[in-house]
């Protein structure tokens, strides 16, 4: 199971313009909803924001990974937003988030959900990789980079 199988060009926004993390999350949920219908979009948004209240998913180094397991999706869904300016995310290190991966997983499937989370963290675990993603001019470049990284594993 690879990340590239779950993310396509329509799920990537390379110029994510948002003034808050709530807005950024909402925009990425919209992208997933347009690609794979979410049963109850508002509920999913509420679940994601509730999760953020408990503990921010801003994991530092300019990366955020809002995520939730929900009964409102039937399969793993991922969207990526790239913000050159950065979005305040109450991150672990206080830095704004530039790479925001949004991950939704069905309640019944924790294995693939955790696998995807691990693959995303591997994709952004070095500065060189994060820079490469930040410099992507279009979704196609992002996909190409993800596929290259997967081939190297």
């Amino acid at each position: 199971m690879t990340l590239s199988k779950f993310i396509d060009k329509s799920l990537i926004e390379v110029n994510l313009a948002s003034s808050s993390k709530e807005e950024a999350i909402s925009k990425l949920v919209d992208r997933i909803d347009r690609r794979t219908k979410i049963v109850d979009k508002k509920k999913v948004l509420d679940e994601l924001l509730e999760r953020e209240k408990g503990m921010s998913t801003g994991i530092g180094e300019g990366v955020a990974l809002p995520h939730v397991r929900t009964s409102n999706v039937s399969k793993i869904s991922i969207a990526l937003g790239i913000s050159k300016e950065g979005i305040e995310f109450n991150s672990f290190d206080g830095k704004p988030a530039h790479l925001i991966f949004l991950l939704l997983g069905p309640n019944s499937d924790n294995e693939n959900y955790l696998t995807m989370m691990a693959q995303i963290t591997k994709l952004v675990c070095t500065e060189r990789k994060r820079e490469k993603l930040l410099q992507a001019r279009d979704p196609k470049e992002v996909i190409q980079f993800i596929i290259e990284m997967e081939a190297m594993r």
Partner: protein
Amino acid sequence: MKVANYMVEDVITLSPNKSFEEILALFRRESFDCLPVVDNERRLLGVVSRTDLLKIFVPEYFALIDDISFIKDFGAMEVDHKSAEMMERLLVAGDIMTTKVITITADSSLFKAVALMRKYNIRVIPVVEGEKLVGIISRTDLMKAFL
């Protein structure tokens, strides 16, 4: 011999928002095999086991390898340290828990608990009334009952 007579009712539980760090601390401190995850109304949402915690740091392709005796160096299989650190910051009980949980009711026979543990190769079974957790029964409890 009913489950109700041997189950432990005073069970340590996890809320779905319990952080990975706190869960690890609990498992390090105590000898649990698994802990139930419940909501505010004590409805059983899932369980987190030691195996679930370990799985996070083992590459997925490991499960495909039948024979590990030929592997001399496991270094390449170790998850990148930075990535593991990020995972630890991200995860809560609700992310890790298994939701397909084998349960039993308090009025069940102890022999049913034995049969379920053997069939599913598990050491602990949450005891429920409807959706609510009322206790757990473990192999240790069964041994106390039968030996």
